[in-house]
């Protein structure tokens, strides 16, 4: 038996998420799929598991071309996927979760299901109390439950999407033992990850995906540097670093403890000088957003203090942070920045600090025309936010940043922008640092991090992994650090 992926294409508008992916995996293999954020791993796995339909290409299992139109089709064909967050209905019992989604009619034979659960889980070496609510299980146990269920449904291919996120070290060991056993029993196990160490430890073979294409295939072991190079591509041009005289500390974190979901940042001692630019590197969900949101006042620290410009803001509200000159620009431009159905002029009225009760629309239009011109926004004062392109939405957001802002917190400030727009955004941002504004930004683009930061903080697994001076590091080292490894 073999799983064959033949020339899969999947486009989202202009984005080529899968751009002609082909590879074959033999049964009994534990196969790693490596790639950085947005490389196209998830899209490919979603196609395999029936969540997306490919635009073209074929999935062949055991010589049979599969017609995958829904997750149910995939499971019937023998392909099961375990999501990062196991899809488990928390208030339901273990047994109910087990039988949920099983084929069959309205009749539900609980006692039979219970003996099946006992049988399959014993085979796998798991043990469950069928009556316990799934919400009382740990994330690791939920994974085991999901594996048990897929095996019972007859899975021949199991896809694990970043399965080690949020589970304990012991559970990780247990999970890896299970994965190896499943492969030995003749299953095809796909292990999707961005963590180099895990792939090196676990996998028999590996496929590296970059920009929707397979760029590298090999049997393990392979030297780490090869994998890093293939994941991120080469070429990190180190430009002349525009270093600037930075001032007194503006943001000061002392023993800061942050908790959000699976992210736990312990005892962070950290300062940003006035005029300094700090880049936050790391794979998505490694803790960068948590730090940004905490500095914006959207998460209360569980310990320590946070001061901005001498004002203690620990535990203060978001609006207090705003008044203290902290401005947060999240990644979702239209979800957590702009408002659909509201025009450019109206957005500028909303953020202006001298708007009167009755809006002077003539003045509002003049202001909008001026900002549109100054920030080269392609749109009219009465254009609604959702009609603007991503780059123009970002320009509008820039135009909405108050003049007197002290600390700018940005998430992926140039994501999805063309080169010209990205450069423009940074020109405007760097102008502000000359006036003493500090910038902290998260980015997945190593080039951007190296080019614009003074210092780079690397996150891994929900905590800060390393801090580097941008001038003294390079893309290769960052690649290692992001994967949770020091350069050897």
């Amino acid at each position, binding site marked *: 038996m073999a799983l064959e992926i033949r020339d899969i294409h999947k486009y*989202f508008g*202009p*984005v080529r998420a899968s751009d002609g992916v082909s590879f074959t995996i033999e049964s009994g293999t534990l196969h790693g799929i490596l790639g950085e954020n947005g490389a196209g791993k998830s899209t490919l796995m979603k196609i395999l598991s029936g969540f997306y339909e490919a635009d073209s290409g074929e999935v062949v299992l055991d010589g049979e071309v599969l017609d995958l139109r829904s997750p149910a089709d995939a499971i019937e064909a023998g392909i099961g996927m375990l999501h990062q967050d196991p899809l488990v209905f928390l208030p339901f019992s273990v047994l109910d979760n087990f039988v949920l989604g099983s084929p069959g009619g309205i009749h539900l034979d609980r006692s039979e299901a219970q003996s099946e659960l006992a049988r399959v889980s014993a085979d796998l070496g798991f043990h469950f109390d069928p009556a316990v609510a799934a919400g009382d299980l740990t994330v690791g146990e939920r994974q085991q439950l999901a594996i048990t269920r897929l095996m019972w449904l007859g899975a021949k291919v199991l896809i694990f999407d970043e399965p080690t996120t949020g589970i304990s070290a012991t559970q990780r060991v247990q999970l890896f033992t299970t994965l190896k056993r499943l492969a030995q029993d003749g299953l095809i196990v796909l292990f999707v990850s961005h963590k180099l160490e895990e792939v090196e430890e676990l996998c028999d073979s590996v496929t590296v995906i970059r920009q929707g294409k397979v760029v590298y295939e090999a049997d393990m072991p392979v030297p780490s540097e090869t994998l890093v190079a293939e994941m991120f591509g080469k070429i990190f041009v180190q430009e002349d670093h525009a270093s600037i005289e930075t001032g007194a500390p503006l943001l000061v974190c002392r023993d800061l403890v942050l908790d959000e979901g699976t992210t736990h940042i312990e005892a962070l001692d950290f300062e940003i000088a006035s005029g300094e630019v700090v880049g936050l590197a790391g794979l998505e969900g490694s803790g960068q957003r948590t730090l940004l949101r905490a500095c914006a006042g959207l998460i209360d620290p569980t310990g320590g203090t946070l001061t901005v410009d001498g004002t203690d803001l620990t535990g203060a509200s978001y609006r207090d942070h705003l008044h203290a000159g902290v401005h947060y620009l999240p990644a979702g431009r239209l979800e957590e*920045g702009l408002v659909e159905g509201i025009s450019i002029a109206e957005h500028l*009225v909303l953020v202006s600090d001298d708007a009167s*009760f009755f809006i002077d*629309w003539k003045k509002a239009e003049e202001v909008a025309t001026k900002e549109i011109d100054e920030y080269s926004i392609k749109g009219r004062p009465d254009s609604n936010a959702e009609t603007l392109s991503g780059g123009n939405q970002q320009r509008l957001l820039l135009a*909405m940043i108050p003049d007197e802002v002290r600390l700018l917190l940005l998430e992926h400030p140039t994501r999805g922008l063309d080169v010209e727009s990205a450069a423009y955004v940074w020109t405007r941002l760097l102008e502000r640092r000359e006036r003493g504004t500090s910038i902290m930004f998260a980015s997945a683009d190593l080039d951007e991090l190296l080019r614009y930061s003074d210092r780079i903080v690397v996150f891994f697994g929900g905590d800060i992994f390393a801090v580097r001076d941008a001038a003294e590091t390079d893309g290769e080292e960052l690649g290692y650090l992001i994967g949770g490894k020091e350069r050897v």
Partner: protein
Amino acid sequence: MTRLRLAVPTLVSLFAALVFGVLLLLVVGAPPFEALSLLVEGSFGSASKISATLLAWSPLLLASAGLVITFAAGLWNIGVEGQVIMGAIAASWVARVVPGPGWVVVPGTILAGAIGGAVWALLAGFLKTHGGVHEIFGGLGLDFVAAGIATYLVIGPWKRAGVASTSGTDIFRQEAWMPEFQAFGVGWPVVPVLLGLASVALVWVLLRGTLFGLRLKSVGNNSYSSFLLGIPTNRYLLGAFALGGALAGIAGTVQVTAFHHKLVPAISGGYGFLAILVVLLAGFSAALVAPIALFFVAISVGSTQLDLRLGLDSAFGGVLQGVIVLFVMFGGAFAARRASWSRSTQEEP
């Protein structure tokens, strides 16, 4: 261009609803064109009928204007019915206890109605902002409580001397009635109509020309973005509830002081729920509320003629109103879907 694109499906849907209504009349064995002309005759056929239609139009305008405000803030203010009832109760209290001439009592009843409706709406509002209860459930619950209070007052503390009857309280003294203006041999509800039109104008101005309205719209369209922009979202949500509730409460005042002249258990006349249909049909726009509300009350008032002349139950009017709204909303959703289909072929999903 966009206006036209929005208007075409609405007109097609209205036509389809009309065809459906005709078919329905054929099914129940009534002559469809005679029935439709009776609807018109019943609502506009004589001076007294026009006056009755205008009197029914006023509370619907007020409740609809209130709903435009809460819808702008993104709220499904199903509690509007209860807000009308509490406005009516508060106005009745003033009409019963406050002595003095009309120019004291009548403004008093209007103010009391506004306060009653606003307080009731704020209850639903606080349940939402501070209790995490969705305004649909909070509002619906409060609707039942308000209806219960009205019935309790009518058969309990405010019962007519000697008899406890669900037919209502004693008639208020004449000074508490909203004044009518006599012309063409009938009394005209000038004050209620002015209140109704003024409420629509107020809402139109608020939403179009003020910072309050713009922030409200912003909160309604995306409350998280608005919060990040520094707008105190909860305060605006509560403001919308209070204002919407006040207008609905004045609709209650009109019901007790201009129409029934007493408190009855079913005092709202269903205008709260009907207003939801009106505002949905108006596409949440204040400017369209007035003509659509007039169209709806014309159907309601006119349909009493169906009963008298054709032996058709007057509920047919309600059926027709519901069908129109369903058809228009379906047409709108269909048009939106087609638009997003044609967009998704060019853009990322």
